[in-house]
């Protein structure tokens, strides 16, 4: 067997709380599991873990905490089963204290262990906000997925997240003197709306140090976050994803992939009441169809 037995990791984040990350993570995982892929859904929303509820699992005894406190040797020992065939779950609900400020080495170890789990896919439910930890997990994933609502605040947060993740990636990639400082400066520098274009940054670095500038350009090309526009209501909302893609390209010089939109759907409320996941309870509702489309788009991108 070759190296490809490492799982593919999909990280679901979003600048803002309440945009539907957890529901999308859970249902995406179930959709993959329904296709026969062995999956783990992992709760890294350490401030407000509730992935277990969406998956219909009682808050398990074992969690990430046991791994971080070294009560167990490997992350795989914290996996618990779910009502869904092929799908396991790792709880993060009591890990808040340990993870509030994990050592760099601890985080790196966790990331390594995630990619050595013996499954096909790992879905990470990331917390809201753009804290370093969230960004690092997002960047460690094979596919980083950002959930956006058709609302000004959410769109603004999404741009902030994209920009922060981008700078974080660049900064981790470069140890050259001068470049890291230039990145820090770009992050601090505030235009009126608080966002400065990463494209400007790369141009600046190219002037200071052409070699470092070119390696940043390469690094930038490999940054390809995905977006999903959730809870769309109007025809215009459905266009938002491709507009964001355009704007990111024009303004940041970043290639974002639009995975599609998810129309608002009453099935969600009904499913929560039944404590079942939507894709399982309502296999033909618009939400389920949209999730399958997202999964198909991501699987298509792997080839």
């Amino acid at each position, binding site marked *: 067997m070759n190296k490809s037995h490492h799982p593919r990791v999909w990280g679901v984040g979003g600048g803002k709380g309440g945009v539907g990350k957890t529901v999308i993570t859970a249902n995406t995982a179930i959709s993959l599991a329904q296709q026969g892929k062995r999956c783990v859904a992992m709760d890294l929303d350490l401030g407000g873990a509730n992935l277990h509820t969406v998956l219909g699992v009682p808050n398990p005894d074992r969690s990430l905490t046991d791994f971080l406190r070294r009560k167990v040797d490997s992350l795989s020992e914290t996996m618990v089963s779910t009502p869904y065939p092929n799908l396991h779950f790792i709880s993060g609900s009591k890990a808040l204290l340990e993870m509030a400020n994990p050592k760099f080495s601890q985080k790196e170890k966790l990331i390594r262990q995630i990619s050595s789990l013996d499954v096909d896919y790992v879905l990470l439910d990331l917390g809201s906000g753009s804290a370093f930890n969230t960004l690092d997990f997002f960047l460690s994933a094979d596919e980083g997925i950002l959930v956006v609502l058709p609302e000004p605040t959410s769109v603004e947060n999404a741009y902030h997240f994209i920009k922060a993740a981008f700078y974080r990636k660049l900064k981790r990639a470069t140890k050259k003197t001068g470049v890291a400082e230039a990145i820090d400066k770009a992050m601090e520098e505030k235009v009126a709306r608080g966002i400065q274009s990463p494209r400007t940054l790369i141009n600046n670095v190219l002037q200071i140090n052409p070699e470092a500038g070119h390696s940043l350009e390469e690094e930038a090309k490999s940054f390809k976050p995905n977006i999903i526009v959730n809870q769309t209501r109007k025809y215009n909302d459905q266009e938002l994803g491709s507009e964001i893609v355009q704007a990111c390209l*024009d303004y940041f010089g970043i290639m974002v992939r639009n995975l599609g939109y998810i129309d608002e759907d009453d099935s969600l409320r009904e499913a929560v009441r039944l404590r079942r996941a939507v894709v399982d309870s309502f296999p033909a509702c618009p939400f389920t169809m949209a999730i399958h489309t997202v999964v198909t788009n991501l699987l298509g991108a792997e080839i």
Partner: protein
Amino acid sequence: MDKDTLKQDYKLLGLDENATAHEARRSYHRKKALYAEGSLATYSLMTAEQREEMLDRIERAYMRISTEIESRSMAGSAPLFSQSAATPDPPGSDESIGTYLKRRRKTLGLTLRDVANRTRVRSTYLENIEDENLEDLPAPVYLRGFVLEFARVLDLPDPESIATAYLKLLGKDEA
């Protein structure tokens, strides 16, 4: 004309360099809407000044591209549309809107699939719109957007009023 400037113009409007006048116009309108004041996708990205600057760049890029496309077709390379396609005929006096859309689409040499690809409206819907199969059409809120996009892709002068007129068909049917 400066080749590099033109190259950047095409890039800015997301066009390839063989784009037709029709494609250029369409993408110009899209870009302008994307950077319009109050656009959800870009309002938080830039200052008012930067927005003005971007709109100005789009405007100038489009002007240069139009000039270039015109000279290209004068030079004898095959223009995509015949003269009659460039300026759409008004609908005939007893022509229904659906038939008008269909006729216009055929004048442009577009298939339903072509239109579906550009509008991202499913071609069965487009067909139902053309044939005025009112009972098979989506809810008016969606329909309005569908007809708007349809008319835009056909480069008709006033997509808004076409959409409005189309929705009136539904009212008549119920009455």
